[in-house]
C-alpha cells in the first residue's frame, strides 16, 4: 500500500487555502504593529493561531456536501486519508510560520516600526527572529487537538473533543506563559507530556477516523 499520495495532498490542500491565508496574513500583518519586541507569547497571534487551527481542522473534517463520501470511496485507505489530513494541516501551519518568518527576516517589521517612529528599532529586532518558532510550537500542540476534536465530533458525545480542546488550550497557554524558556524539570516534563499528548491524539484520531460515519 502506498502511503504518500501527492494528488490527495493537493486535493486536500485546496481546502485549506483560505484558513492558510488567514493564518499567514494574520500573523504577518500582526507582526508589523506591536511596538514591544515580539516574544511569541502575545495574545493576538495566539488567537489567530487558534482560529487558523480551528478553521483548518474544520475544513478538512467537513468537506463540502458530497465530497466526504466521494473522497472516502476513492479507494484510499482511511488511515492514509487521515495522515494526509494531518500533513495538509501541518503544511498550512508551516506556510503561516514561513510567511511570518519572512516578514521578520526580510526586515519588513523593522522597517514598519521605524516608519512608525518606534525608537527601539532597529536594535531590538535581533531578539525577535525566533518568535515564529514559538508559534510553531503552539501549532504543533494545537493542531492535533483540532484535528482530533473534529473527528471526535463524528462520534457519540460529539462535544468530547471540543472540551478536550477547551481544557488543553488554557493549560497550554498558562504553562506556556509561565514556564516557556525556564529551566527545571517541570517545563521539561510538560514538554514531554505535551509531546505525548500530541502523538496520542494523532494516533487516537487515526483510530477514531477509521470508524467515522461518512455523511452524505
Amino acid at each position, binding site marked *: 500500500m502506498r502511503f504518500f499520495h501527492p494528488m490527495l495532498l493537493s*486535493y486536500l490542500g485546496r481546502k485549506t487555502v483560505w484558513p492558510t491565508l488567514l493564518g499567514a496574513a494574520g500573523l504577518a500583518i500582526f507582526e508589523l504593529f506591536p511596538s514591544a519586541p515580539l516574544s511569541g507569547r502575545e495574545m493576538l497571534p495566539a488567537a489567530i493561531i487558534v482560529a487558523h487551527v480551528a478553521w483548518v481542522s474544520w475544513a478538512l473534517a467537513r468537506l463540502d456536501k458530497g*465530497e466526504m463520501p466521494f473522497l472516502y470511496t476513492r479507494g484510499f485507505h482511511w488511515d492514509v486519508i487521515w495522515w494526509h489530513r494531518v500533513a495538509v494541516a501541518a503544511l498550512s501551519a508551516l506556510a503561516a510560520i514561513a510567511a511570518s518568518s519572512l516578514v521578520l527576516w526580510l526586515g519588513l517589521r523593522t522597517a514598519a516600526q521605524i516608519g512608525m517612529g518606534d525608537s527601539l528599532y532597529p536594535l531590538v529586532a535581533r531578539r525577535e527572529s525566533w518568535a515564529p518558532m514559538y508559534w510553531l510550537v503552539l501549532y504543533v500542540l494545537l493542531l492535533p487537538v483540532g484535528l482530533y476534536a473534529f473527528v471526535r465530533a463524528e462520534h457519540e458525545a460529539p462535544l468530547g473533543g471540543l472540551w478536550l480542546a477547551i481544557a488543553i488550550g488554557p493549560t497550554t497557554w498558562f504553562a506556556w506563559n509561565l514556564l516557556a524558556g525556564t529551566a527545571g524539570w517541570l517545563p521539561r516534563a510538560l514538554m514531554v507530556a505535551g509531546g505525548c499528548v500530541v502523538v496520542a491524539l494523532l494516533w487516537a484520531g487515526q483510530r477514531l477516523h477509521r470508524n467515522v460515519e461518512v455523511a452524505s
Partner: protein
Amino acid sequence: MTGLNGSGMSMAILEAKDLRRDFSGVSALDGVNLSAASGEVVALLGPNGAGKTTFLRLARGLIEPSGGTVSIDGCAARVLAARGGRGVAAVGDAWEPAGWISADGLGDLQASAGPFSRRIYGRWCEQLNLSPYKAFRQFSKGQKRWILCGLALATSPRLLLMDEPADGLDPSARLLLYQALRAYANDHDAAVVVTTHICGDVEKVADRVAIIDRGHLIVDAELETLRHEVRQITRPSEAGPIVPGNGCALEILGHRREGAVDLWWLRTSNPEALSSLAGGGEIRPVALEDLYLAVTAFRSRLENAS
C-alpha cells in the same frame, strides 16, 4: 467467459443479511436480505426515502449497520471501506468532488488511489465529448454523473454500487450507460447494484429487481421470473375481491379501483391457470414500471389502513 458454466451458479459478491439501520431512532432500513452475485445486475427500486441510498451507503461501508450484516466477498463492508474498499466502486446520488477539479484531475486522483485505466476513462468521457480540462462544476448534472460513472468503471471493480447513475442524462445517454453497465457485468463477471426510479431503463438490462419501501424489502426476484409470473387482471368491481387459493399459489401484489373496475396485480407460478380466476376480466402481462407503482401504492395504502 468465466463463472457462467451455463448453469447460473454464480457466487454472491454482495450479501446483506437482516440489515438494519436507524437514524436517531428512526428506522431507515429494517431487516433487508439482499445479495448480488457476480455477473448480476440488480435494480434496486423504491420511492424516495425508501432506504435505497441507506442501503448503498451501508453496502459501501460508509455507515455502520444498526443490526445484521452486509459483506462483500465475505468481508464486512465497514472493514473493507476503511481499508480503502478496493474492488468496490460506488457512484452516489450526491457524491461529488470539489468543483475546481477537472475531469483529467479526477483521473489523476483516482489513479493515485488504486488500479485505474486511463484508457477506459478517456474513451468514456469522449463518448459524450466531455473536455478533460474543464472544471467539474462547469459540467451539467448529467455530465457529472457520466464522469463519475466512468471513474467507477475504470477502476475495474468487482462490485459496482450506483445510486441514480442516470440522473440528469438524456435518454440516449441513459441507454448507453445501462448498456455499458450490463456489458461491464458480463465482461468482468462483476456485480452491479443500481438504484433508480426510472424502471424502463433497468428493465432492459437488469437480472433482478428488488423493491424497497419504507425500509422493507418487498420484492426481490429475477426479472425473468417476474415477467413470467406477474399478471394484471382488470375486472368489474362487483366481482368482488380475488381470493387466493383455488389450487394455485397466488400472491396479490397490488389492487386499485378505477371507477367501476378493479385492477389486480397477481403473482403466480402458473399464469395459464389465471384465466379461471379472471372471471371474465382481462389478463395482461405487466411492465416493471406498472408493477412498481402498483406495489408501492398498494403497500402504502395497506399500511395507512392498518
